C-alpha cells in the first residue's frame, strides 16, 4: 500500500517535471539567437521573402500563441514538421532511433555485463596483480578521449588491416542488389556494428568495473559476508550470491540512467562513425534552429530519463528488501 502511494506521488511529480521541461525547452529555443531562416544565405532572397517564410512557419506569432499551439499539438500527438527536412519530426526520430538504440543500448548492456563481472573479480582479488591490472586498464579506457579512440580504431581496424568497414551502418553495394538476401543484409549491419560497438565498449566498461569494484569492497566488509564464510560456504557462492547482488545497486542506477540517455546517442560517436542516429540529428537541429525537431528529440530524452528513474525506484525495492517506501 505504501509503495503504491509512493509510486502515485512519483508519477505526479514526473508529470509536473515533464511539463516544466517542455516549457523550458520551448522558451530556450525561441530565446536562443538565430532563426531557421537566417542560415539561408542566398543573396537573392529578399527580406520580404524571408519574412514570408517566417510567417508561413508560424514564427511571427507572439510567443504565447506559439506556446499554445505547441501544447495543443503535443496533446494531439503532433510534434510538427522539421523546418529543414520538410517532413514529420516523429518520422525523422523513428527513422534514427532504432540505429541509436542498436548501437548504444547494446554497448551499455555489453559493457555493464563485462564491467560487473570484472569488477567482482578485481574486488575479490584486492591488491593482487589481477586487481591492479584490471583497475589500471579500466582507468585508462575510461579516460580515453572518445573521438580520438574512434579515429584510431577506424584507422587501424578498418583502414590499415581492413577487417571492418570504415563508416556507416550498411554497405550500399550490398543493399542495392535486388537479389541480396535478408541474411547477407543482417551480416552486413552486424559487420558495421562491431567497430563502433567496440569503441563504446572500451570507453564504458571501465566505469562499471570501477563502480562494481568499489561497491563490492564495501559489501565484503559486511557482517553477513563474514557469517557466510563462517558457515563454510564456497567462495564462489559468497561472491556471486551474497556479495554481488547487494553490491549491484549503484551499478543498476548507473546502467538504468545510461540506458535512458542512450537514446540521445552520442553525437561524437555517431559523427565519427557516420552512424545515422539521433545524436547527429540533435546537433543539427539545435545548430540550425530546427525547433520542432530539437524540441521533440529533447522531450523524448526527458521522458525516457524520467521513466527510467521511476523504474529504478521500483527496481530498488525489488533488489534490496531493506528498501521500503
Amino acid at each position: 500500500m505504501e509503495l503504491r502511494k509512493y509510486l502515485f506521488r512519483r508519477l505526479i511529480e514526473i508529470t509536473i517535471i515533464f511539463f516544466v521541461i517542455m516549457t523550458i525547452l520551448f522558451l530556450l529555443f525561441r530565446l536562443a539567437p538565430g532563426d531557421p531562416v537566417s542560415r539561408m544565405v542566398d543573396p537573392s532572397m529578399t527580406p520580404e521573402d524571408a519574412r514570408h517564410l517566417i510567417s508561413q512557419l508560424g514564427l511571427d506569432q507572439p510567443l504565447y500563441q506559439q506556446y499554445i499551439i505547441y501544447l495543443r499539438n503535443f496533446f494531439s500527438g503532433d510534434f510538427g514538421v522539421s523546418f529543414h527536412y520538410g517532413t514529420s519530426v516523429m518520422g525523422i526520430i523513428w527513422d534514427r532511433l532504432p540505429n541509436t538504440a542498436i548501437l548504444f543500448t547494446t554497448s551499455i548492456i555489453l559493457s555493464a555485463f563485462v564491467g560487473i563481472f570484472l569488477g567482482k573479480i578485481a574486488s575479490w582479488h584486492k591488491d593482487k596483480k589481477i586487481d591492479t591490472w584490471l583497475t589500471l586498464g579500466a582507468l585508462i579506457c575510461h579516460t580515453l578521449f572518445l573521438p580520438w579512440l574512434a579515429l584510431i580504431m577506424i584507422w587501424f581496424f578498418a583502414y590499415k588491416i581492413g577487417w571492418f568497414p570504415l563508416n556507416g551502418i550498411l554497405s550500399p553495394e550490398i543493399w542495392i542488389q535486388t537479389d541480396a538476401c535478408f541474411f547477407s543484409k543482417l551480416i552486413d549491419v552486424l559487420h558495421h556494428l562491431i567497430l563502433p560497438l567496440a569503441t563504446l565498449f572500451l570507453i564504458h566498461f571501465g566505469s562499471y568495473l570501477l563502480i562494481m569494484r568499489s561497491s563490492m569492497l564495501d559489501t565484503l566488509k559486511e557482517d553477513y559476508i563474514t557469517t557466510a564464510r563462517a558457515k563454510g560456504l564456497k567462495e564462489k557462492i559468497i561472491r556471486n550470491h551474497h556479495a554481488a547482488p547487494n553490491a549491484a545497486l549503484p551499478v543498476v542506477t548507473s546502467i538504468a540512467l545510461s540506458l535512458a540517455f542512450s537514446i540521445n546517442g552520442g553525437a561524437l560517436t555517431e559523427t565519427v562513425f557516420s552512424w545515422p542516429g539521433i545524436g547527429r540529428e540533435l546537433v543539427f537541429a539545435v545548430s540550425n534552429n530546427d525547433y520542432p525537431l530539437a524540441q521533440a528529440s529533447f522531450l523524448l530524452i526527458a521522458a525516457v530519463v524520467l521513466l527510467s528513474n521511476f523504474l529504478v525506484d521500483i527496481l530498488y525495492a525489488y533488489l534490496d528488501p531493506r528498501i521500503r517506501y
Partner: protein
Amino acid sequence: MKNFLKIKHSTLIAITISIVFCLSCKGENETDILKIGLAEEPRTLNVWLASDANSKKILSQIYQPLYMSEPATQKLIPWLAKEHPVYNPETISYTVTLRKAKWSDGTDLTSKDVVFTANIIKDFRVPLFASKWDFVKKVEIIDKQTVRFYLTKPMAIFLTRTLTGPVVQKKEWEKIVQIAKKKEKPLKTLLNHKIEKPVGSGPFVLKEWRKGSYLYLKKNTYFFGEGIIISGFKLGPFLDAIIFKIFGTSDVAILALKKGTIDMFWKGIQPGYLADLQQNSDIRIFFSEKSALYFMGFNLRKPPFNDINLRRAAAAVIDRNFIVSRILQNYGTKLFSIVPLENKFWCCQDVDHYCESHPRDKRILLAYKTLRNAGYTWKISPVDLDGNIVEGKGIRTPNGKPMERFTILTPPADYDPHRAMSGMIIQEWFRDLGIPAYSRPMSFGSLLQTVKTKHNFEAFILGYGKLSLDPDYVRIFFHSKNDKPRGWNMSGYRNPCFDRLADQSKTTIDPNQRKKLLFKMQKMISRDLPYIPLYTPKLIEAVRKGKFTGWVEMQNGIGNIWSFCMLKPDHHTKKSF
C-alpha cells in the same frame, strides 16, 4: 561428445563460409558505379525547400535548367532550351524554344512544364526563387516547344539567374499545388511536401534513398543530352549509377578515398590533408578557382567605423599576403574587389590595393598618417619621434574621446578555421595601431542574426562560398534599400550615387554597358570600404585514379553536371581505343 563437437565445428564452418560469401557479394557491374562521399546527408529532395549544399548537389543531377554555364568560358549556353532566347524590346519579352526532351518517367517535357514552374514560384512566392521572378509579368505557351516570358522591364539577371533555375514536371506537382492552394498556409504545404522519387530531366534519377546511409541514383535512360554534342562535349552519361555515401568527418572520408571505398569526396579538402594525399599515387588532386568572396565588413551606422578614415587605416594594416600565405597556406587568392578575380569578365582590377606590397612597418606608418591627419590622437603614438614603429596605446577619436573597445565577429574555428584565424590576426594588426579590437568567434546562426537582423555589431568577417557568376550581388549587398533588418546591406552603406548606378545596372541588358556600371560600383566600394575584400580560397578536390576518366574542370570544381555526363569507367575508355 565427439559427434557433438563435429556438429559444432561444421556449424561454425558453415556460418563462416556464409559470412564470407555474404560480405564478398558485390554488384555485377560495380565498376560502372561512381561512388561519391558527401560530408552531410541532403536534407530534402523537395526542390522548393532545399537550401543546403548537399541537397542541391543531388537535385542538380535530377532537375535541369533552361540555360547553364559552359565549363571553359562560363558563358551561358542552352541546356533544356534549344537555342539562345530571342529578345523583343518592344514587348520586353524573351522567346525560348525547348529541345525535344523527356522526363524520367518517359513523358514529354513541354512548354506547359516551364510555364507551370514559373507559376509555382510566382503564386507561392517560393523564397529561394521569388526575387528572380518578380519582374516576370507573364509566361505564355506559344506551342508545345516554345514559351514566351514577358517582363515588366528589361532585367539583366533574367538570363543569368531566372532562366538558370530548375524546371519541374507539371504532372508531378499539379495535384500538390492544387491541395496547397486550398490550405491556410499554402507555401508551408508546398515546402513540406515529401518527395520520394523526384521526376526530373537530368542525367540521373533517384532509385533509392536509405536515410542516413546512401542515395542511389541510376542513369536516366530518357536524358535528352545522351549522345548529343553541347559545347563541344558529346554527352553521356556513361555511368550506370552513382552512389552517394554519407560521411560524418573529413578524416574518415579521406581514408575512404585512399582505400578506394569512394571515388570522389564532394567537398573542398583542407590544405592540411594535401601532403598525405599527394604521396598517394592512386589519388588525383584538382585545384579549382572558386567564385567566392571572404571579406571584413564594418557597421557604418555607428562609431567608430562610420568614419571612412578609420576604415582606410584598417585596409592599410590588413596584410592579405600574410592571410593567403600563412592562413590559407597559399591555396587562395588575394581579393581587392567585391567581385572575385576569378570572375574575369565582371571583376574590376583597377581598384585601390591599399599597401598591398608594403612591409608591416610601412603599413602601420601609412595607417597612422591617415588617422593622424583625420584628427586621431594617442597616449603612446604607434610611430615615435624618430619614426620607429612602437606599440600604440590609448587612441582617441577626433572628438577627443577614447576609442571604445569593439569586437570583430567571426564564425567559430570549427565552422571555418580560416575566418576565425583571420579575425584573430586582424585584431593584432589593429592593436599595433592602438585600436582596441577584439576578435570574437560566434556561432554562425547568431552571427548572421547579429549582423543581418539586429545590426548590433562593429565589424565582422564573413564570406560567400559560392557566388553566382552574375554580379548582381554587388547591387544587393550595398543598395541603400537593402539596409533593413534581414536585408543584405549588412554594413548599412548608403550612397545615392551608388544606388543610381546599381539601379541602372539592374536594368542594363547589354553586358558591356553593364560591365562599365559594375566597374564604377566596384571602385566606389573600394573607395568607401563598407567591406574590405580579403581572399578567395582555392577549391581542392581529390578523386581516385584508374577507375573513371573524364572529369571536367570548371570554376567551383569538378563536381558539376558536365563531369557526371562525361565520366567514363576506365575499362570503357580502354575498350574504345
